[in-house]
Structures are given as structure tokens and as C-alpha cells.
């Protein structure tokens, strides 16, 4: 087996929502973080960057927009070692 690479040496960005990032709102002295669901059908996908394991390659950061121009399927699931 060829040597796997570790391309995940820097922290990844998570959601890349730029200026549309919901700003924390200050209400009665309590800072509340606004958590907003942004994904909607018919609307542009929200880009993100995540660290990934790729078989045969190793670890690398992956951006959703790396795959722009192709059909993409994203599958979220609750956890490794569960049946999915």
C-alpha cells in the first residue's frame, strides 16, 4: 500500500458563508448566537470546507465548491460504526 498523505495540517474553515454569516445579536446583555439554516431547494448550495479521509490518498481538506460543475450528493449521517 502506498504511503497515505496528511494534508490536514491547518484547521478547516467549516461553512463558507462570507458576508451573509449571521451576526451574534445582543439582547438584554446576553449575546445570542444566531443559528440559521440556509440550505433550501432551488437555492445555491452553501459552500464549506471540511477535513476528510480519502481512501488511498489520506487526509486532505475538501471544499464543496471543488466539485462545482458536477452533480454532487452530500450524505450526512449520525456516526461511524453505526449502520447507515
Amino acid at each position, binding site marked *: 500500500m502506498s504511503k497515505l498523505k496528511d494534508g490536514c495540517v491547518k484547521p478547516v474553515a467549516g*461553512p463558507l458563508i462570507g458576508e451573509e454569516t449571521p451576526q451574534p445579536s445582543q439582547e438584554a446583555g446576553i449575546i445570542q448566537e444566531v443559528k440559521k*439554516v*440556509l440550505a433550501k431547494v432551488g437555492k445555491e448550495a452553501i459552500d464549506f470546507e471540511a*477535513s*476528510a479521509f480519502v481512501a488511498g490518498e489520506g487526509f486532505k481538506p475538501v471544499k464543496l465548491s471543488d466539485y462545482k460543475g458536477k*452533480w454532487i*450528493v*452530500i450524505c450526512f449521517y*449520525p456516526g461511524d460504526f453505526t449502520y447507515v
Partner: protein
Amino acid sequence: MAAVAALYKEFQALNVEILSISTDSRFVHKIWQAEELSKMVDGGVPYPMLSDGGGKIGSVYGVYDEAAGVDIRGRFIIDPDFVIRAMEVLTPEVGRNPAELLRQVKAFQHVVKTGEVTPSGWEPGDITLTPGPDLVGKVWEVWKP
């Protein structure tokens, strides 16, 4: 994951990239692949397995369960223009049906290519509809469930 991996060649033939994502770290993904997935599917899961530690990505996609600290089952189809075409979200107890995912991808690719629309349960080769004034009240003539 393994069920989608088993159909991977069909997804590749349709020019579809698959990304799986959970709150597990990339390290756990590697060991799951080595210990289990590679034994379920020849060669293991061939697509990138992403880590959403903290659930930030799941939050913007509406699938992060804060109480449990995990992303629940959610599946999104994104077209080449980067537009979300479909989403399916399930509570954890029930697994998904990759054959239905494949069917939806084929149907979306067909409508993008042709401008036609596909009725309920459409499979490649089935009749499609062309929307417009002439079709109003006439669907029954060409299509029945």
C-alpha cells in the same frame, strides 16, 4: 454509506461526486474504513469522508441535532450550477434507499437536459411531460399513476 458505495460505479457513470459527512473526525473515518467498511464493500468506501466536528456544516444544512451532538441522516442533491435540487432528512432509525437517490439524480439530469418534467415515480424510458397551456387538464390523457 456502504449501500451507496455499492452503487458507486452507477453514480460515477452519471458524473456524480459523492461526499459523506458526519461529526466523527477524519481519524475515526480512516479506522471505520479499515475495520468495517472495507469488509462490507470491495475496496471500501471510494468517496471522500468528511468531518463536521462541532456540527457547523450540519447546522447550516438543517441536519445538526444539538441535543445528540450529531448530524442526522440528510441527503442533498446539488446540480452543476451549484443549486440544491433535492433534500431528504430522516431521523436516525431508518436508513436511506440509494436506489431512490439514483432515480432522483437520473430524473434531475433528464429535466436539466430536456426541459421536460418527470411525473411521480418516473424511471428512465418512462413518459415525460412538457409543461405549458396545452397540458392543463390533459395530464390524464398521457399519464396515470
